[in-house]
């Protein structure tokens, strides 16, 4: 007789009418395949844990977003937000789909150049641009988005010295009715700083003001805020036209569209509560089209969408190391990946699916990582089928910000593979080795030897 599939013995108290902080069961299907590749075979071939990026999903996402915006507004240009995920393979998929590059540091700028992005199609954002960075961007005719007055004055000086008129935009922050207001970046709209900066740029005659930029927040759940932001930038553009008879060639609405991840503390799952990209597109395009631009002078709409285009294209596969019982009776499951590579678990309740078939029984548990640190908690409360040592799990929506914010802490970061359109898996970042980590370390002579 063939033996039956084993499941750990479970006993659950039955409570009537009480709220359960672990929530209800959300996982009904095992994720055994990603884009046709078997999860367990992937782990066997590339090791555990393992990041998996789906090329198909990335392309579907950017094509869908372009279609959604282009059907509502005639002039749209996406720029890939490097900080969201700057693995070259990921960036190049976006570039093949027509996205420019949006960078916030020299490091990212150089990555974009090395990836083959024409330098006049690189948008350089962020508060920290050194003189070297500015000189390079001026030479390369990149779009420089000015964050503060010190940068503005320095840029005027440098462009004067170089006898070149760089193309610039200013970043504008504003009240769009959401909290917290991101007023630390750029120039404020309501108190007149933005208008003042615009006047300074035009009066200097050293810079070519071609755009207006904003980035009102991150993981935005209100599409209407983008409508307000677009209306305010359009109002500035129309004021420039009236006063200086100068057209603004683009309005850059930045990023911030939410992905379908679930924020900690949210009352609804992200998939049920996050606005569709079409809602953001409707709000932005309506504001711009109704702002009063002459039809022939409609500015381009630039978008730096990151998270919403790549989060659901990334998966983290891992393995159960052990199960234990905590002193208060809760079940704890220890996984082989921690917050060092899943940084977003600090603010998301990530969806986690078992990678093997399971019964209808579930168990309330805490999921810990392997880091030997108390803060290494992947899920504080989750109701999952009982997991045994060696079982595998799939974490969803990890494509944004995890690889770029990961830390090499006490262990080595895992491989990242991309599954191509044919269903073949390719390593796009090798697992780190000890020599990778020690490569930049130096030993002082007198510390070379010791006797124990």
């Amino acid at each position: 007789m063939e033996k039956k599939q084993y499941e750990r013995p479970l006993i659950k108290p039955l409570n009537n009418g009480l709220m359960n902080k672990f929530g209800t069961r959300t996982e009904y299907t095992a994720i055994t395949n990603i884009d046709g590749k078997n999860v367990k075979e992937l782990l066997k071939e590339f090791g555990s844990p393992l990041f998996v990026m789906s090329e198909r999903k990335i392309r579907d996402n950017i094509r869908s977003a372009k279609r959604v915006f282009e059907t509502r507004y005639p002039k749209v240009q996406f720029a890939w937000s490097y900080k969201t995920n700057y693995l070259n393979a990921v960036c190049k998929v976006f570039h093949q789909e027509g996205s420019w590059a949006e960078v916030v540091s020299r490091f990212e700028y150089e990555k974009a150049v090395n990836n083959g992005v024409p330098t006049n199609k690189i948008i350089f954002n962020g508060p920290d641009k050194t003189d070297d960075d500015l000189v390079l961007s001026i030479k390369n005719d990149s779009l420089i988005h000015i964050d503060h007055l010190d940068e503005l004055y320095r840029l005027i000086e440098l462009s004067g010295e170089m006898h070149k008129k760089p193309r610039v935009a200013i970043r504008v922050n504003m009240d769009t009715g959401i909290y917290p207001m991101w007023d630390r970046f750029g120039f404020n709209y309501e108190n007149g700083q933005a208008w003042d900066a615009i006047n300074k740029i035009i009066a200097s005659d050293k810079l070519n003001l071609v755009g207006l930029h904003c980035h009102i927040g991150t993981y935005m759940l209100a599409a209407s805020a983008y409508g307000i932001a677009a209306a305010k930038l359009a109002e500035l553009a129309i004021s420039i036209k009236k006063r200086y008879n100068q057209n603004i060639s683009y309005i850059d609405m930045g990023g911030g569209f939410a992905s379908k991840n679930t924020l900690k503390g949210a009352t609804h799952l992200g998939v049920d509560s996050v606005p569709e990209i079409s809602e953001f597109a409707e709000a932005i395009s309506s504001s711009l089209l109704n702002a009063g631009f002459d039809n022939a002078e409609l500015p381009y709409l630039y978008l730096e969408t990151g998270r919403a285009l790549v989060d659901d294209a990334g998966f983290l596969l891992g393995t159960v190391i052990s199960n234990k019982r905590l002193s208060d009776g809760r079940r704890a499951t220890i996984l082989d990946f921690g917050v060092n590579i899943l940084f977003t678990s600090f603010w998301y309740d990530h969806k986690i699916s078992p990678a093997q078939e399971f019964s209808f029984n579930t168990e309330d548990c805490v999921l810990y990582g392997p880091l030997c640190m108390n803060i290494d908690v992947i899920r504080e409360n989750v109701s999952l089928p009982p997991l045994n040592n060696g079982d595998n799990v799939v974490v969803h929506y990890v494509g944004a910000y995890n690889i770029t914010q990961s830390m090499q802490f006490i262990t080595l970061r895992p491989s990242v593979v991309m599954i191509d359109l044919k269903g073949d898996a390719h390593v796009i970042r090798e697992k780190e080795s000890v020599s990778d980590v020690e490569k930049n370390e130096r030993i002082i002579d007198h510390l070379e030897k010791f006797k124990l």
Partner: protein
Amino acid sequence: MKIRKNVAQSDSGFIFNPSNGDSYSVNETGKLIINLLQQEKDDEDIIKQITDEYRIDRDSVEKDLYDFKNMLDAYKLTE
């Protein structure tokens, strides 16, 4: 370890403790272990029966049985 004599278990895995009115649900292996404990089987018998019936190694069953018995104790289902 003995299961309290008045603890009732249904075929579907519903457990009722009349001493305090609390009820619980157990899965298939949980049900089997409670049945065997009610028959006053010892740990070795229980482990053997589970490893005979299910695809699992002895060490895992031993660890799970220890944990499960602790939970039965914590829920005051034992005497």
